[in-house]
């Protein structure tokens, strides 16, 4: 029988819940032997929107995109370090564009079995229901999805994980 989970992709955006998702995904990859892909999307769609709305100037657009690229590298490196500490190799996937579309594209590109994300923000306005990028990705992705909760428990599990998953 084919292993139920061969490729896990975890989405990270730098938020604390997304890092908790990463820690869980590392544990899961270690126990299951699945490949781990880490996905970060530079939200250039939002920057373009701000330029169109004339909130951003052209030079601000360039500056913010540059900063966001640097954020992406920093977080991808951080996740790489977290995984390396536990002996888990990671495949990096950095995308640019619309966050929910790029997550779905990455899932298809890497033939992912399981998408892991951190806890979603609590819905506090009707607008959130329409515009939460991660929630839109969860609805559109063709693979199964795992939403990671309970930061303390996950941290403990990650910390107790040995170098070789013991």
């Amino acid at each position, binding site marked *: 029988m084919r292993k139920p989970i061969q490729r896990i992709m975890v989405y990270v955006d*730098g938020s604390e819940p997304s890092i908790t998702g990463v820690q869980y995904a590392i544990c899961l990859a270690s126990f299951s032997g699945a490949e781990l892909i880490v996905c970060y999307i530079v939200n250039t769609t939002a920057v373009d*929107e*701000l330029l169109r709305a004339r909130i951003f100037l052209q030079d601000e657009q360039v500056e913010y995109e540059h*900063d966001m690229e640097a954020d992406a590298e920093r977080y991808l490196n951080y996740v790489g370090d977290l995984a390396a500490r536990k002996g888990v190799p990671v495949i990096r996937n950095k995308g640019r564009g619309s966050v929910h579309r790029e997550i779905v594209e990455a899932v298809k590109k890497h033939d992912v079995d399981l998408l892991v994300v951190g806890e979603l923000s609590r819905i506090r*306005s009707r*607008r959130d229901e329409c515009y939460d990028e991660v929630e839109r990705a969860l609805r559109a992705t063709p693979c199964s999805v795992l939403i990671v909760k309970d930061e303390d428990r996950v941290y403990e599990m990650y910390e107790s994980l040995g170098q070789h998953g013991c």
Partner: protein
Amino acid sequence: MALIDLVVPEIIKVPLGSTDKPGVLRELVGILRDAGRIQDYDAVLQAVQEREYKQSTGLEEGIAVPHGKTAAVSSLQLAIGIAPQGIDFNSLDGKPAKLFFLLVGSPDQSGPHVQALADVARLARSKAFCRALIGAEDVHEVVELMRDE
């Protein structure tokens, strides 16, 4: 973090007391200082003023979105001010600004900053919603309106 997560009564002022653009910027940054959200008032004000010198962040239909980046904040900060009488803000359409969203972010957290600004841009597209905000009688009504949107 969603924009709505930043919306609490302490960072809202209705009505603003200022009558000109420099005063509004000082008052909005002052809201953050008084709410205990920033320590270095001058650095934050300077970041916002520097952006404003390049071009006014006054948009159309009475909305203004002053913003800036500075290492003086460790996380994204929002202040909302409403001036029903309108204030000359050198806006794109020449109309007085009545609804102000001030956003200040840290240089190493551009993602959340951009997302929050995009959320504000979407809110600003709804004229009915902006009219309702401008007509809000107190900060609690502003919070309720933001949550209902």
